[in-house]
């Protein structure tokens, strides 16, 4: 589990101190606020969680909404061929369209589409996150420009959010990139917390959603129906957008008037009071109820979910930590104390392996204990750790007090770590477990020769 740190405390800006001496106080304050808002290092965890769920929405867009009618939009014999699109829509403006540079053959367009899908999958998993996000963004732009007529506000938002992801450090937590990096790092030096970095791309997306709410609110305020309270009455009567029914008891004008003015009030709060800490979560709750209400009544795929998902970025890091710790505590209450796992802290291979297990163990079901650390002596003596055996393999204590060693311990862990579940059935195949056990013993016997060195040994 990647822990969720608080934002680092503000530090002075020595390199600008001399230059700002002569500046008026208000300019200095403005610059300080600007720096603090955009560049004060903070955790990328919220952006990383956003990345995962947003990637799923992008995949939904591509595979569920675009693919069924792909030829109609993008094929060589599409409804509006690209030459017509350029002359009738692009006019003298410029659009980014990689496909316009490809030969006019469907296989290239399909190729670009599947590259976009693959890049989105990689972005969601956090594999080569920066590159995959950029590829996704550029291809999303290309497909948007290639056939503009199926694009809606949701597509605009997907594009903008993907750009912010590509500019962010969303791959620094909950990602394969982070796991791969962790296998090369010593957590005794780097810690387990996600690497702090400047959150300017996250802030940009926060501002972008406020721009959207602010603009829609202002436009609505100019409309007669929004002011006389009948707008929602008409909006839920778009017969091509209807989703679930509204019972007649609620299908009444006074209710629609409350909903119309309520929408205006909530949208106003979503770009103003959301920035004020005491009201932030209340505003987010109101926004969720607004979007879920629209989601119930109207068939507008992606749009509502991508907006609701962006609220994640407004959750304070310490509250994310608290929420996750609450969940872990609930799991601990339900399934008992975490399992003790004794490892050799003087072996760098063991340290890295334990680091990997800990990062995968998102619910905190495993409690690693370094038996070379004097602080753990009392606890390990109490549970009667066999130190001689622990020198040759990692040991995991089961509920009955017995210790499982080596490969069997790892297999036991995989059963209790959801992220390892795809691997678990393979580990129970007899031939696999036989060879895995042999391999474990061979590696364990030579572990200090593989990565360990005297310099890495804990003093």
């Amino acid at each position: 589990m990647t822990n969720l740190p608080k934002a680092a405390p503000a530090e002075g800006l020595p390199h600008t101190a001399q230059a700002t001496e002569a500046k008026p106080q208000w300019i200095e304050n403005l610059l300080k606020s600007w720096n603090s808002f955009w560049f004060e290092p903070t955790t990328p965890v919220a952006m990383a969680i956003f990345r995962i769920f947003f990637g799923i929405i992008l995949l939904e867009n591509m595979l569920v909404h675009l693919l069924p009618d792909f030829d109609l939009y993008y094929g060589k014999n599409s409804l509006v061929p690209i030459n017509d699109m350029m002359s009738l829509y692009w006019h003298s403006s410029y659009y980014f369209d990689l496909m316009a540079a490809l030969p006019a053959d469907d296989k290239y367009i399909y190729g670009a589409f599947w590259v976009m899908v693959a890049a989105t999958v990689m972005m969601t998993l956090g594999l080569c996150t920066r590159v995959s996000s950029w590829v996704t963004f550029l291809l999303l732009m290309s497909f948007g420009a290639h056939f503009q007529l199926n694009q809606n506000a949701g597509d605009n938002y997907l594009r903008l959010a993907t750009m912010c992801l590509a500019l962010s450090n969303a791959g620094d937590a909950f990602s394969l990139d982070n796991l791969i990096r962790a296998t090369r790092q010593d957590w005794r030096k780097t810690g387990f917390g996600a690497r702090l970095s400047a959150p300017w791309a996250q802030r940009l997306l926060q501002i972008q959603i406020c721009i959207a709410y602010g603009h829609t609110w202002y436009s609505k305020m100019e409309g007669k129906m929004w002011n006389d309270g009948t707008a929602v009455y008409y909006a839920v009567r778009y017969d091509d957008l209807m989703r679930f029914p509204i019972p007649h008891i609620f299908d009444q004008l006074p209710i629609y008037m409350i909903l119309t003015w309520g929408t205006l009030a909530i949208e106003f709060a979503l770009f103003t009071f959301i920035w004020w800490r005491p009201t932030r979560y209340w505003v987010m709750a109101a926004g969720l109820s607004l979007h879920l209400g629209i989601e119930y009544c109207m068939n507008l795929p992606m749009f509502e979910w991508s907006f609701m998902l962006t609220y994640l970025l407004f959750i304070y890091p310490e509250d994310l930590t608290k929420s996750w710790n609450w969940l872990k505590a609930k799991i601990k209450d339900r399934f008992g104390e975490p399992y003790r796992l004794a490892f050799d802290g003087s072996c760098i291979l063991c340290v890295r392996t334990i680091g990997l297990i800990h990062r995968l163990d998102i619910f905190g079901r495993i409690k690693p204990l370094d038996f070379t650390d004097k602080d753990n002596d009392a606890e390990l003596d109490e549970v009667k750790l066999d130190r001689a055996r622990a020198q040759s393999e990692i040991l995991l204590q089961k509920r009955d007090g017995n210790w499982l060693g080596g490969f069997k311990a790892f297999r036991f862990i995989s059963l209790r770590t959801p992220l390892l579940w795809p691997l678990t059935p393979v580990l129970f195949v007899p031939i696999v477990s036989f060879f895995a056990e042999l391999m474990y013993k061979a590696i364990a016997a030579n572990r200090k020769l593989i990565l360990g060195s005297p310099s890495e040994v804990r003093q």
Partner: protein
Amino acid sequence: MQSTSPGTRKLSFRQACNYSSSSGRPTAAHKLLVSSFLLTFFFVVGSWLLPEWTPEKNSITIYTGPIMNLAGWTQYWSLFCPEVRDLNYHLNALVEFSDGTVKCYEFPRHEKMDLITKFRREKLRKLFGDNISWQNYEQFRPSVCRFLARANNDPTNPPERVTMFLNITNTPPPDKESFCYRDELPPHTRKIILSSYKVNPTDLQ
């Protein structure tokens, strides 16, 4: 939680759980670059979103609009506003063949689809319902007519003309006399011809 370097001392497991390293503060050059990008973004996007009555708006957007389109920063957030649509409609086309017969084609109608189909095919609604049906996109109608002509081509009896028309009805206002429940909306009975396209032999190739 710490973010400062632990130095040469190594953390215990418990300490490591509460420690985050930092990628470091951005340099002044990095900040300048990012700040320039942000200010450009806000200027380009902000000028586009200014109210239409803003003096000199067009003289700014003539420069910022192309940047917005090229960079993928398109902003369109006027959903259901300033006014909400007070009508329902669907699109049809008549394909006339050389022997005088006529075929009526009904474009996808989401109100007739089941929940899953209308969810999957939402982009078709955007295409035919929100865009092609309206004046802002009328320049695309000949392309749609050519597509329909090709799709219905019979070499022995080729299509000669394609006519697109809208079937429309007003949503009854919510006053006492006209109020109607959401599930009792009137059918789309009024017809409006949108375009009529004479098919050329080259359109069928």
